[in-house]
């Protein structure tokens, strides 16, 4: 480092402003109108303070709980509904007893081909088939419901810890004596 460098450092040492400099700056700041913030800046400012950040986390957790509970309730209702329908449907309608002789059999076949099956009977059959399909799917749906329940319990525990943290943070940030 040359002597010129040292001399330049010495020549350009920092200087202090007048003693009332800070006071004058603050006075001018106080006279300034509040800066106009854009809508986005104002929205962002809502979650800027530490307390509000925790409130935002709490609200998000509450929303997740509500969605999870609704989903769980929907699945549980579906399972109950299916079980109820199944019990109402009863055993499948029995076929008419087979005719004894061949002549009667032919007559019945001819009758079945010529006469349309009543609509009421078809509907009952379809309902029964649907119920049977649901019975087949019941274990699958039950496992789905169990999984949803597990997820809900996990969400609840996360939300609970988040809310505890939020409460703690709010207490910590609160006014000090």
């Amino acid at each position: 480092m040359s002597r010129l460098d040292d001399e330049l450092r010495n020549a350009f040492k920092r200087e202090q402003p007048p003693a009332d400099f800070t006071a004058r700056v603050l006075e001018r700041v106080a006279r300034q109108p509040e800066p106009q913030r854009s809508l986005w800046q104002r929205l962002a400012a809502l979650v800027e303070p530490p307390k509000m950040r925790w409130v935002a986390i709490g609200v998000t957790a509450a929303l997740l709980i509500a969605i999870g509970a609704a989903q769980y309730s929907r699945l549980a209702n579906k399972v109950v509904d299916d079980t109820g329908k199944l019990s109402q449907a009863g055993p499948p309608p029995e076929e008419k007893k087979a005719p004894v002789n061949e002549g009667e059999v032919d007559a019945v076949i001819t009758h079945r081909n010529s006469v349309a099956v009543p609509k009421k009977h078809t509907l009952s059959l379809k309902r029964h088939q649907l119920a049977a399909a649901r019975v087949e799917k019941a274990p699958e749906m039950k496992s789905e419901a169990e999984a949803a329940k597990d997820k809900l319990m996990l969400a609840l525990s996360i939300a609970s810890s988040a809310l505890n943290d939020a409460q703690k943070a709010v207490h910590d940030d609160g006014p000090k004596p």
Partner: protein
Amino acid sequence: MNNATGARLDDRIERSALGDQLAFEQIVTQHQGMVFSMACHFLRDRSLAEELAQEVFLSLHQNLHSIKSPEHLTFWLRKVTSHRCIDQSRRQKLRPTVSLEDVAEPAARASENDLFLSEMLRRVVDTLPEKARMVVILRYQEDLEPTEIARVLDMPLNTVKSHLRRSLSMLRDKLSRTLGEVTL
């Protein structure tokens, strides 16, 4: 800067942005020397420098939400002060009212009077073009490296280096003529 100091400064910036006047006052107190000195060395007029420094802090108050860290705050203040000084100088045509050749030759030797030498150096630097002058001030007042000066002044690194080289060479010439046997 240790972690505790950094955290305190971060906290001050955050509180200032939320309207805490005390925190803003602490920021002003901490940085006023830097801002005022840059303006004072550049403009060579204390009242103009004070006015400019106040405007820089007013601008800071309006832009506190964009300051991300204490380092960013210092960088922001240096940048805004530099640009405002250059603008002010161009507007008011403050630069050289005296040419390099007109700078008075000192009657005393450097060893006899360091204050006189400092004043002479400042007057010679005052004859430099605006950007070159600011490069010298940032280099020797703020002790910044050429890369940092390039960032503050939005200037290519090679331009900063060439400004420094030419300014120092000019200062050496002038001072060797003036001070004769003193090796600089």
